[in-house]
């Protein structure tokens, strides 16, 4: 009997600790939500109690009417979509070739890719800038997509290749006997089986551009080519502090992300598990 009471107390303590942690985790998020709906501009004027200043939608109307928020959102969405689609195509095609064919220099190419992925891509940003200048890719969205795509390939090709390696080769061979060509095998056999890792790849390469700052800053100049990260950052620079507007804008980006993550939580857990085991 005593044992049971102790267990009960233990469980309660754990619950209390978890609740405190939850509050710590939620604190900044709740505060952003409240700031987005609070009157005033800078964070200094906000009440320390969330939602303590009243309620207003003026920051949202300000975002839509007086700033380029919608354009930033559209640009970022375009960049993220294209980066994600092209990364899936290029990386999985490369992974299929690396997994199923043997050819000259295969070994050195794979080792090179593994070494390349340890560098943050902005180490070469001066050269990337000049190359984009040469191919007229500066201040364009596709220039930025190319840079992201190239940066994504080395690691992701390896990741998908490791997964494709686990698909039995007998599947391809039986299809080849039935007269299927390589492209057909890739599309109809490999891609469907490799779906978990493709989904994972799609999600990670879709989310990354939303948070990137350096390359958009370097490549995109004109006002109608800005991305969300650039736009949001401009609200909270040293020169001006429009924290409430920033919060409103950030909220609009974060909400779709959060909903998406909560819905796909289960898939993510298994995909992560897969990514860990299959590597």
């Amino acid at each position, binding site marked *: 009997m005593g044992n049971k009471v102790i267990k009960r107390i233990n469980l309660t303590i754990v619950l209390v600790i978890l609740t405190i942690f*939850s509050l710590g985790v939620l604190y900044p998020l709740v505060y952003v939500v409240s700031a987005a709906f609070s009157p005033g501009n800078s964070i200094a004027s906000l009440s*320390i109690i969330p939602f303590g200043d009243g309620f207003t939608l003026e920051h949202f109307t300000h975002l839509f009417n007086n700033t380029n928020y919608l354009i930033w959102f559209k640009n970022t969405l375009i960049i993220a979509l294209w980066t994600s689609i092209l990364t899936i195509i290029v990386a999985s095609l490369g992974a299929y070739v690396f997994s199923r064919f043997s050819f000259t220099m295969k070994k050195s190419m794979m080792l090179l890719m*593994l070494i390349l992925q340890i560098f943050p891509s902005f180490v070469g940003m001066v050269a990337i800038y000049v190359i984009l200048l040469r191919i007229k890719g500066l201040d364009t969205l596709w220039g930025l997509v190319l840079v992201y795509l190239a940066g994504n390939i080395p690691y992701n090709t390896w990741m998908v*290749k490791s997964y494709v390696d686990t698909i039995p080769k007998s599947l391809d061979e039986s299809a080849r006997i039935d007269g299927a060509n390589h492209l057909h095998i890739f599309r109809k056999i490999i891609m469907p089986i490799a779906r978990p890792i493709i989904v994972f790849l799609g999600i990670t390469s879709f989310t990354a551009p939303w948070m990137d700052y350096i390359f958009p800053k370097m490549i995109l100049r004109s006002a109608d080519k800005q991305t969300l990260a650039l736009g949001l950052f401009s609200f909270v620079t040293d020169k001006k502090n429009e924290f409430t507007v920033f919060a409103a804008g950030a909220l609009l980006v974060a909400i779709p992300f959060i909903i998406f993550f909560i819905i796909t939580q289960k898939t993510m857990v298994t995909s992560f598990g897969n990514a860990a085991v299959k590597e």
Partner: protein
Amino acid sequence: MNTRLKEDGSSRKQILITSMLFMGLGHIVHFKQYIKGLFYALFEVLILFMLPTILRKLNDMVTLGIMKPDLPVKERDHSIFMLIDGVIVLAILFIFVVVYIISVKSALAEYKEFCIDKRLKTNKESISRALGKSFPIFGLAPSVGLILFFVVVPLIFSACVAFTNYSAPNNIPPNNTVDWVGMDNFVAMFGGEAVWTSALGRVALWTIVWAVLATATCYFGGLIMAVVLMDNKLKFAPIFRGVFILPYAVPSVVSMLVWQNLLNGSFGTVNRTLMQLGWIDKAIPWLSNEWLAKFTTILINLWAGFPYFMLLVTGTMTAISADLYEAARIDGANKFQVFKKITLPMVLYQTMPLIIMSFTHNINNFGAIFFLTGGNPVVSDSTITSAGGTDILVTWIYKLTVNLMKYNYASVLAIMIFIILAPFAIFQFRRTKSYKEGEF
């Protein structure tokens, strides 16, 4: 020349010589594979045609241009364009050499088959074979092209810059030229100039400490949460898990900028709250005291980073067989013993590669530092080196490039990152399945 081939393998030398003489010649002369041979030959003709340009570009790369102060700025030699063009030309030449080797190898392979079949392949055969064999080329062409021009060339360029004096104020094209200076930058950074040397030591040390602590705190934070929440007696576990995932779902730029504002020394909400509660008298310099700022970055990184490992560990834990736990329970093991003897070793083993990846990610974790502290606070050498108290190597590289335009020193740092991370890349390589299975 006698183009008849002997079937006993003795014509190997002859093939080798013809195919080395001109790209594709072997295919045309010996195997009557005109299309394939012509493609090879065309490539070589193209390169030969561009040879004067190639040589000029390579020469430019060596000289990096000469000062022409009398000319208008637009017509002066632009050293950086010259250097990048040189690297690109080298990349193209490299491709050429590789294709050349492939062409010779393919001619020899063709001959081997000839010796076995005792006849040349018909046109139809060789075309259908070529189509099948060319799939890897088409499949890899986009990857190779993109990686070559947007990853390899920039990195080689950046490595080259470490051996030049490309830096403000005196060597910024197009007004001035840039020159090769050998190891000067390395000498300056490693002992030559005291300010830079001490800044480098400080930043490099902090980068490693940061990466270790950031990875360890997030990993164990996530592990503990995953284990606690896996307990099936716990009520509301899914709700807690849902809450704890939130930081991972929020874009990191957003959350770091929010924290930066919340923790601001003078008007930040955290300090104002603590003051109104009466817990502190004067503002805590979360981000403006060097040591406290270091602590804060790790703490906030824990906030942002533990959900990832929580998800990961939860994923791996569900894969641990329930029989194992059942057996332990029957043997009378308590919860802590089960955790120590079963869960922890299993999870550690499974997630080890991802811990290492996370470590290398943290070495390069630009966002977690730049958007939270901007590398600040300012320390004694910051005015000269621009490296603040929480700057890690990558954020320092960014500042050197964007603010100070000292590209040469930035490149030295990039090489340092390479030296730190290369062992991890090799380790990662050696534990891949394909390496273990002797594919290499």
